[in-house]
């Protein structure tokens, strides 16, 4: 099993979710996050004084998938989240040692 984490533009969340559901993914966890990469921040003014927004709002998506599905899921996210402009985000894949469904106690692939 792998944990796939994708940090995407907030307005792309719906597209990514719909694409993943269409690809047969049954669940995910979403977190509102802030951060910066190459896009950097930008300067705003408030009541005449400037302030720097270094941490841009993004949405982080977490989902655990069976090894066989990793490439499909990553490709689906890449397609659905892309705008081609700077700040589209990143996707990364991490190993998962153990997965348990709380209600039934099922483990591993059964719990995905």
């Amino acid at each position, binding site marked *: 099993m792998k944990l796939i984490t994708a940090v995407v533009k907030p307005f792309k969340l719906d597209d990514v979710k719909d694409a993943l559901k269409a690809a047969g993914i049954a669940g995910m966890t979403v977190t509102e996050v802030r951060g910066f990469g190459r896009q950097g921040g930008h300067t*705003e*003014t*408030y*009541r*005449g*004084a*400037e*302030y720097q927004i270094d941490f841009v709002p993004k949405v982080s998506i977490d989902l655990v998938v069976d090894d066989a599905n990793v490439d499909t899921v990553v490709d689906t996210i890449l397609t659905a989240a892309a705008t081609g402009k700077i700040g589209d985000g990143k996707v990364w894949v991490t190993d998962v040692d153990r997965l348990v469904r709380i209600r039934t106690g099922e483990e591993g692939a059964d719990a995905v």
Partner: protein
Amino acid sequence: MRNKRALRIISGLGGAAAIVAIVPSIAHAQEVSETQAILDNIWVFIAGCLVFFMQAGFALVEAGLTRAKNVVNIFAKNLSDALIGVLAFFACGYAFAFGSGGGKLIGSGPYFLNGEDLTTFPGMDDPTALHLTVATTFFFQVVFAATAVTIASGAMAERTKFSAYLIFSAIMTAFIYPVVVHWTWGGGLIKQMNIGDAVYSDFAGSGIVHMTGGIAALMGAAFLGPRIGKYGPDGKPRAIPGHNIPFAILGVFILWLGWFGFNPGSELFADAFVMTVALNTMLAAAAAGVVTTIVIWAKAGKPDLAMIGNGVLAGLVAITAPCGAVTPMMSVVIGAIAGVLVVYSVFFFDKVHIDDPVGAVSVHGVCGAWGVLSVGLFAKYDDAFLGREDAGLFYGGGIDQLAMQLVMVLVIAAWVAATTAAAFFILKKTIGLRVTAEEEMQGLDILEHGLAGYAPDMAHT
């Protein structure tokens, strides 16, 4: 043309009786109908209710333009200053303001409204006299007192010790503000001044209420010093954006609505001029908001909504003094000028390290002074204070009225600056005016009040 009201001095029972005793030969024994007196009282009561609801507007503007970690403290201050204000004004503020016993510097009269006849309509044989009962007058005046004190709250936001603010609220509503009222609406010092034919005019309190609050706000912000992080190491001002702009703008709308009690209610009669005053108030607010939008858009590149909210309020504060004396077109001009003033004033105070999170000093102090002065420029009609038509400089009244208005601004500003500075100085040296740096960084809500404004939804189900 305006129905001239001979005397606009609100007095306690003794004063009212004295006036009636002096003027019967002037009155043409024209009786006032009881219906008219009831209408006057009911209208002023409703206006007072609108003014009271401005407390909610002040709370929302202040809470919206500051950070989430202080939101409980801000609502606590705005509630408590109303609570304390009502009791302090009842105990002695009303007597200091309107009591007939004192001299020209301070009134003295029944304290705690003790022994006052609350229900009799005075001046029923004189259509030009006020017909408000003592209860109506107290109700309308006490909500103004609560307004004057709450203005300072915004400028002192996010760093003031709660206990120190409570004591300041009591001093303000028991003594500092009532003295200003006594000097003006109460018939004292400023009321007795004149420059040629010019006597002071401040219809609903640009100077008496708003500038008084604005100067207190300036002193509070100055004695406190800026919030941690407001100025960078190079001394340049940094923005600390408010956490809830919808709060702030809802607050602006509530204040704007409340102003239709503040200004038209100050007519103190249910008559045809109420709507003129309301119209002027509406126009000035709109003009100021539009002009502020243009100015801030040009200066900062964006139509900054927080600043536009300040602009609307600036127009309302400015029209508060001249609303009974000027034409609708001049109300637009007065509002428009306030809309420019407020932007440059906010920039100025930011630069000189007066950290005013909501712009109270600029909105109420600067535009309050502008409102008082504008009477000297634009007054065309007799608002029952001026006692003459065409008093303004631009209507051939000469410089006298402007000079008189300036004297009034200087006298009130000097009094309020001196007394609030003394109060803040003593508070700073005794119980302390400011919270600790640790408390300021963590937010006042948890450490001052033990309560989070936006608690996580983790209660047991």
